């Protein structure tokens, strides 16, 4: 038994006296009689969060969530039930409810076996105990002080610190037995600045699959504080953004949310199996300019979007989605992969045991090109340089996507000039990707705060990109 499976056993099964034979028995309920595949997902998740506001530690809270989700699949049909009690009887009941999608009863045996060596991308630690409570409080206070000392116009500072200790184990009728211990930490800073009658906001933050020490290393937490204030002060000077179609230069790192919205979602296996995506049936076709190579990489050590194994027990991968502008592949979980006759790419993810797995992104980014970022900006006569974004949204069927800038500037005659107020950028995924004419040599990944929502389920993700130029994109400001 591997160390991870050992830990998962002790955390998830041992407290209620469940053992190997019970696992086999539950899976036995789920085989035969028209069931093609089934799995049981055990999870225990502990979350802790702290909030500082008005210079005081305002809130501290702790949350425990545990249970098991049981899924049975027959053809394109999925039955699902879950229980927050990790006892044999409710779990067997849930298994029977899940398999009720077929009329006949189960009568089989399954023997699961753990992968012998799983490549671990993060330490199986509990981040909640990586600092004492006093040290966490002290960290929040230091971030608050750092933000306030930047500028007297800072009127409000809100800091939140969140840590999660997630232990999961999945057993499936295909013999899979896999476990993972997933630490995740995050710190966010939000500031309000005031100058005369005018008020603006700025925010920053970051995190990783690591201990809270990650936020102390390299003064990361303090850097986030300084960055939030800098952004808010820039916004105090911002003028109305222009309205209309123009060249847009996107900065490196977080603006990669463009790829997440314009490309990533449209390449998820479920939409493509059903033929509802603007990218459906287009593998091998040119869907972006030749300078674009986009990957989804779940294997980056310690990254927020990374997973040693996905929620179906498949090892994560580095999947090429677009290579030199040509569509190469989709993101798959086991269910959609089987129906499409391909292999899972390790992208089967779920928010928790109480949710069904779906094909989801991990860390999605574009590989660097050859241009110096300055050269890209200098190439624009009149346009927008956007470096920070709130969030985005996509309609995968029409391909339309939007994302909202939280820090952007005008480019005039090849120079970055006046900051502009948060404008929304809108485009069509495949069309916008064809308009990417210059790709920088400065690939950066985001700092680790991304959350992706799909069908009501939230999962942590990463994005990244080098500086890039889109020749034509619609900028939704109020100015002319």
């Amino acid at each position: 038994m591997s160390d991870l499976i050992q830990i998962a056993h002790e955390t998830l099964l041992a407290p209620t006296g469940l053992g190997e034979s019970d696992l086999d028995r539950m899976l036995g309920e789920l085989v035969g009689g028209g069931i093609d595949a089934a799995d049981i997902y055990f999870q225990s998740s502990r979350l802790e969060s702290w909030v500082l506001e008005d210079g005081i530690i305002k809130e501290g809270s702790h949350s425990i969530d545990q249970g098991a989700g049981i899924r049975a699949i027959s053809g394109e049909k999925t039955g699902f039930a879950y229980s927050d009690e990790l006892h044999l009887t409710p779990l067997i009941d849930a298994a029977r409810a899940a398999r009720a999608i077929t009329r006949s009863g189960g009568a089989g045996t399954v023997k699961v076996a753990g992968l012998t060596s799983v490549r671990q991308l993060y330490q199986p630690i509990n981040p909640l105990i990586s600092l004492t409570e006093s040290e966490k409080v002290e960290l929040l206070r230091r971030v608050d002080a750092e933000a306030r000392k930047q500028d007297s116009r800072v009127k409000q500072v809100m800091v939140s610190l969140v840590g999660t200790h997630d232990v999961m184990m999945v057993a499936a009728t295909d013999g899979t037995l896999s476990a993972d211990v997933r630490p995740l930490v995050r710190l966010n800073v939000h500031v309000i600045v005031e100058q005369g009658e005018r008020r603006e906001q700025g925010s920053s933050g970051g995190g990783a699959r690591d201990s809270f020490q990650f936020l102390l290393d390299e003064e990361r937490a303090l850097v986030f504080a300084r960055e939030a204030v800098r952004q808010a002060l820039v916004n105090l000077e911002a003028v109305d953004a222009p309205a209309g179609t123009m060249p847009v230069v996107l900065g490196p790192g977080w603006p990669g949310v463009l790829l997440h919205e314009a490309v990533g979602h449209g390449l998820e296996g479920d939409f493509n199996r059903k033929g509802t995506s603007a990218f459906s049936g287009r593998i091998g076709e040119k869907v972006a300019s030749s300078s674009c190579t986009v990957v989804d990489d779940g294997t980056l050590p310690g990254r927020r979007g990374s997973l040693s194994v996905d929620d179906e027990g498949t090892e994560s991968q580095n999947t090429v989605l677009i290579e030199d502008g040509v569509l190469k592949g989709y993101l798959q979980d086991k269910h959609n992969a089987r129906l499409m006759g391909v292999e899972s790419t390790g992208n089967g993810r779920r928010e928790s045991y109480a949710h069904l797995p779906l094909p989801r992104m991990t860390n999605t980014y574009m590989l660097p090109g050859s241009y110096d970022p300055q050269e890209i900006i200098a190439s624009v006569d009149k346009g927008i340089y956007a470096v920070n974004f709130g969030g985005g949204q996509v309609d995968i069927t029409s391909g339309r996507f939007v994302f909202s800038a939280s820090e952007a500037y005008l480019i005039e005659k090849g120079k970055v000039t006046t900051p502009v107020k948060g404008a929304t950028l809108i485009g069509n995924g495949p069309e916008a990707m064809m308009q990417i004419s210059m790709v920088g040599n400065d690939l950066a990944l985001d700092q680790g705060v991304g959350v992706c929502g799909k069908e009501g389920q939230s999962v942590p993700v990463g994005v990244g990109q080098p500086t890039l130029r889109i020749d034509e994109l619609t900028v939704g400001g109020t100015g002319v």
Partner: protein
Amino acid sequence: MNDIKERKARLQQLVADILQEAKAQGASAAEAGVSSDAGLSLNVRMGEPETIEHTRDSGLGVTVYFGQRKGSANTSDLSPEAVRETVRAACNFARYTSEDDCSGLADAGLMATDLPDLDLYHPWEQSVDEAIELAQTCEAAARDQDSRIVNSEGASVDSHAGLHVYGNSHGFISGYPSSRHSMSCAVVGQDGDSMQRDYWYSQSRRHEDLETPEAVGRIAAERTVSRLGARRIATGEAPVLFQADVAVGLLRSFLGAIRGSALYRKASFLLDHLDQRVFPEFVRIHEMPYLPRGLASAAFDSEGVATREQDFVSDGILRSYLLDSYAARKMGMQSTGNAGGVHNLRTTSGSLDLQGLLSKMGRGLLVTELMGQGVNTVTGDYSRGAAGFWVEGGEIQYPVEEITIAGNLKEMMLGLQDIGCDVETRTSVQTGSWLIDHMMIAGK
């Protein structure tokens, strides 16, 4: 019915036990909420069942106060050991949080004492097969509606019923059962190269009040087909008519700006606007917490404070902020019974339906979908992706997409020309279509 009474009594006892445990662990005050919910969610696609989910959720949350220090914890595990551990975790946090003058339970004098039955509990006794059949009827109605409907994301039926109990150490403990049912359908249409998707749904406390599956499917198909061939329009200013279901979003943005938490942080464009004009004179925005079967009806808020019929806006003047007790204390005011949100909000509606408003607008943009998060509550700056229809001479000309609309919420609210009688009733915040005098449209 006896069963639900018994379960309610059990959850009330659990809340009492939690409060007792908090006291035993040294808390000077405590509050707790417990909920338990079960349901069925299923989806049918291309005529066949796709997912059938049996949901069963329970959870408890407890907040303890040691003087002015606060700690909280929650868990999905309602076993006695888990309850004790959760209370202990909350008490531990209260050792590290700061003294906060404004923290604490809501004032004892504000607790709800009149607890009418609001008729919120109507479980839907249906088998999985009956629910599947309903979804199949709904999806088939959409797919048969028009030959341009070529694909489907399916039709869903969701039904949930449960209990919620809240109590605090003022001696307030109360709870009520409720149910919620919905049916929805999303289909894909194609015409040449243009592929579009749209949806429709119905939602209510009582399944008999849902729209028929045929109607839900038909409307989903009509909405999808009407978008085919959408194009972009030129950049420029024009009046904008927000169809009722998206006008609800504008109303929510307004509520976000009068919420106490935004105001005491100075994070609202409506800071210091009490008793000032924020809408034209014809606008009234009022809250009706006691509507029988209302989607957001409640006799008490999430702090046990009695809810009340009240106006946030009348004659276009901002009459009240939206406060829980923490924000109220921060601002030297009193809670408005809105901890946890609003309870059935309704605006004035005029005499014109959507067609009447189109005629009134003459030439402009009808918005039927908004995308993205471009609403800044601090400044009121508003810039969002939009889709809808271009209107000339009061008549829809063609569908429009891939454009943005931008303005400032403060000016947009003052520039409100009319609210339609076509009230959106599927949400807790209800209004008709909004006609705004002008906004900036960015297109080609």
